[in-house]
């Protein structure tokens, strides 16, 4: 069940900012965190992007195979459009996650493992301690550039 790093890896490359995400980022920075990590956390909160796409794609592959994953991508696209987002990050994240999860079913990781992995990684990012996790995100983000 250690696919937390995988999820964390391909949720990172995105920083499209919705207006509410800016407010959450400012609040996290005021509480002692880092500003760009705060923006990304606020972005995860306020629109269904690639992390929600990974979760729903894992659920879809678990219950219905590849069509379930693509249906989850459609749901994510509709939800992103409702939330005034462009919707590209969540949809492409869900499609990529569908195929990654389906392929890794052959080497022993099943969809259930991915559901638990996404829940644990979202707990790690959003739920333990905001200053530390926002600095961690910022460090990885700068390393990718």
């Amino acid at each position, binding site marked *: 069940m250690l696919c937390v790093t995988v999820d964390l890896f391909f949720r990172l490359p995105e920083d499209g900012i919705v207006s*509410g995400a800016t*407010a959450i980022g400012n609040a996290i920075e005021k509480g002692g965190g880092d500003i760009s990590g705060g923006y990304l956390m606020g972005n*995860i909160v*306020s629109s269904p992007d690639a992390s*929600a796409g990974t979760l729903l794609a894992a*659920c879809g592959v678990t219950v219905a195979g590849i069509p379930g994953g693509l249906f989850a991508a459609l*749901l994510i696209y509709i939800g992103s459009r409702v939330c005034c987002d462009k919707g590209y990050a969540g949809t492409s994240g869900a499609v990529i996650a569908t195929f990654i999860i389906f392929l890794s079913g052959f080497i022993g990781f099943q969809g259930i493992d991915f*559901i638990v992995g996404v*829940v644990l990684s979202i707990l790690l990012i959003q739920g333990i301690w905001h200053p530390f996790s926002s600095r961690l995100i910022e460090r990885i983000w700068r390393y990718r550039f």
Partner: protein
Amino acid sequence: MEVQILIALQICVVVAIYAAFRVVFEKNTLRKLPFLNVVSFAVSGIIVLIIPQPLALLAAGAYLIGTALGSNAIASTLAGDEEG
């Protein structure tokens, strides 16, 4: 297989309850929202793990998108108040 679903369910339930306590004990409203996001992720995972059917996927997606829309509305409203 059954044992694996049970373990996954227990992990999701523990995460959801922990994050719900953090929501209750956090003072700042904007900093409550990430914990609320953890709760909604865990609950939509629980929905699919309990009912492994395609319609449960629709229910979980509707729940996840609905909570994200609610958090977006709250955060946008507070941001507008701060700016104006």
